[in-house]
């Protein structure tokens, strides 16, 4: 409970939590506030924000409600960010756990692969994956997860290296536990907290990657995503710059919220580090 108290003592962490809850509320309220398809025509194209009460945030180039797209976009961003992060953390912890636990040639091979992934710029790899597997919501999410696992893998490996010869592991070994039991049941729960905290960074990057991909029109065009809307707004940037500006602020707020919460958790769970 100390950690919770510490978390709420930091104003930045509280602001982050409030912003994150607001984005989640937007995602939940989208279907309730805008029951119609956000990508359906709603009115005249390019209505400026705050001029027509029916469209508080205006309409885009083809007359779709920007506010509706921003609300539904929160769903897409959180969905892609969350699932991609889960994929990255799962792959990362598993590979990192095996590399750190077994060491030797297993470690060597796994770390070589990790290094290969880190040497290739992740956005370039993302482009290759999208070029090969196409750009539906599912493939894009998996692709983002697949390019994001190396950092969690290194983190898990480092934790495993320091934990694998502790007394509790040796005790487990003496009791005749199998490697897999030791890895998943004994060491992993102890190695996980820093990795979970790092998930905040992974998620922030995942949201940014998806929006960049969507902006380049390489993400799923059939969902209301913030990046898609910014890409569309680019065609009318000269005069109706608000079409791009509004969803960009939504991305900024979401990424800020996720990183503030991640940072807050980090400081709350590792109080000694915070003194620096």
């Amino acid at each position, binding site marked *: 409970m100390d950690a919770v108290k510490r978390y709420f003592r930091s104003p930045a962490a509280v602001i982050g939590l409030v912003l994150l809850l607001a984005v989640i509320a937007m995602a939940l309220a989208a279907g309730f506030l805008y029951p119609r398809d956000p990508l359906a025509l709603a009115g005249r194209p390019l209505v400026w924000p705050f001029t027509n009460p029916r469209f508080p945030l205006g309409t885009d180039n083809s007359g779709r409600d920007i506010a509706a797209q921003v609300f539904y976009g929160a769903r897409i961003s959180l969905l892609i960010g969350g699932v991609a992060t889960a994929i990255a953390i799962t792959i990362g912890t598993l590979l990192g756990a095996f590399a750190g636990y077994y060491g030797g040639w297993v470690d060597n091979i796994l770390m*070589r692969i990790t290094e290969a992934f880190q*040497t290739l*710029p992740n956005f370039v790899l993302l*482009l290759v994956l999208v070029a090969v597997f196409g750009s539906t919501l599912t493939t894009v999410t998996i692709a983002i997860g697949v390019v994001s696992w190396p950092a969690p893998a290194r983190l898990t490996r480092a934790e495993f290296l320091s934990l694998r010869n502790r007394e509790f592991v040796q005790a487990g070994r003496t009791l005749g536990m199998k490697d897999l039991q030791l890895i998943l049941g004994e060491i992993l729960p102890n190695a996980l907290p820093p990795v979970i905290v790092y998930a905040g960074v992974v998620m*922030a990057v995942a949201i940014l990657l998806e929006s960049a991909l969507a902006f380049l029109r390489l993400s799923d065009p059939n969902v209301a995503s913030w990046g898609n809307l910014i890409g569309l707004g680019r065609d009318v940037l000269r005069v109706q710059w608000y079409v791009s500006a509004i969803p960009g602020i939504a991305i*900024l707020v979401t*990424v800020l919220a996720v990183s503030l919460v991640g940072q807050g958790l980090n400081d709350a769970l590792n109080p000694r580090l915070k003194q620096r």
Partner: protein
Amino acid sequence: MRILTLAGRRLAASIPTLFLILIGVFLLLQFAPGDTVDAMMAQMGGGDAATARELRKFYGLDLSIPMQLANYLWRLVRLDLGFSSIYGKPVATVIMERLPPTILLMTASLSFAFFFGLVFGVIAARAVNKWPDTLISTLGLIFYATPSFWFGLMAIVVFSIYLQWLPAGGLEDIGQVQTGVWRMIDIARHLILPTLTLGLIFLAIYLRIMRASMLEVLNLDYVRTARAKGLDETRVVTGHVLRNALLPMVTLIGLQAGTMLGGSVVVESVFSLPGLGRLAYESVIQRDLNTLLGIVFVSALLVITVNFVVDLLYARLDPRISAEG
């Protein structure tokens, strides 16, 4: 000399990594719908099956996948990246044409981010928990969360459309032919907004790391000694703290090289710069898989080179590194 051997050993260790990447991406691209010949036929406006077979044979695409891979790697050893059917030129030529703007952009962004990250980091650390620190740290957080392409677009709206101070895109003014210094100035003017756009997120990262690293070094005993012998605060920072606090920053350059290259894909698209990143994007759109594979090779090579330079720099900053085996 020791430094060179050490860095050289790390360079040699990255060769297997490079091959791993190439083999992986090559095999990955086999899953891609349609091959180069399909793309060429589409460009030509269609053709019969016999022509397609001829072409596949000519490009060695009728061989088995392991044979194609072996062929590809053997050609790579001779620095032959294959032929781009879209551009009608060897891939190596296409990439070499597109490399200079990207390197220029990356160097400029890195210098911008490194310099201002250092300055702001030092200012924040010296006023820790006072208002300059709060201001700088908050700005850093916001910059970190800003999507670069969006910042680029907004910069275009403000500086190119409303104020009309800077050009909105391109590498140089194609309306008039310029030479020498004027051409350089023109290119520099075109690169200001892209540099800021690409550098912003790295500025945020660098200033955060610099601040943390300064705070850590400022608490060490030798700094107390320096103060005790009567040096003023500026001399302590510039003469004693800075060099040690710089080490994590330099490490970060190597770690972030790939991210920066990835970021340039987006930034070059926003500002229509004819660079490597834009080429990567175009080859995805046009299904020019040969070029895409070439770009993968060159970008991995670029990241490895940056890390080699970082190793050298690192040893220069901290002599202990080259002294240890």
